[in-house]
């Protein structure tokens, strides 16, 4: 199979594969962040349909912290340090 693909076509396949994986990762990151911050910040008694001031502040801070945790864990994993 590999012999049928020219080097240029192979590179293109790899690039498309990487692009797809990158997009999937970003979508998944956004979804996890959204669900996590909703769970942590929004009162689940739903007394009204608007987000109140406290919830809005919490959401902003939650997103920022989640982002920093993502980067921090990425650094730790990337540094070759063992999970323990």
């Amino acid at each position: 199979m590999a012999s049928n693909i020219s080097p240029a076509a192979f590179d293109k396949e790899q690039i498309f594969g990487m692009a797809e994986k990158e997009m999937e990762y970003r979508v998944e990151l956004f979804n996890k962040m959204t669900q996590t911050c909703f769970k942590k910040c929004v009162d689940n008694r739903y007394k009204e349909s608007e987000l109140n001031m406290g919830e809005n502040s919490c959401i902003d801070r939650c997103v920022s912290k989640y982002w920093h945790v993502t980067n921090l864990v990425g650094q730790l994993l990337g540094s070759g340090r063992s999970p323990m």
Partner: protein
Amino acid sequence: MDKSMLADLDSLPEADKQRMTVMIDQLQIRDSLRMYNSLVERCFNDCVDTFKHKSLQKQEETCVRRCAEKFLKHSMRVGMRFAELNQGAATQD
């Protein structure tokens, strides 16, 4: 899906542009369905506790509507903040 991904498509040859667009569309559809399912699960779990009736009661329906509306507003806000972080904007504590 953020639109910045779509902007990069213009520099591609037509066939590759087509392929990338299909990929993004599929991802978008999958993402929407997943969000729909998880929102149903979340709002059902938060709003429905008793089963004396098989039809949704008034206060349950009100709760579900508020839950869904709040989540959509929440998701929009997270999206804005997420975009800011991706652009490397500094944020206050």
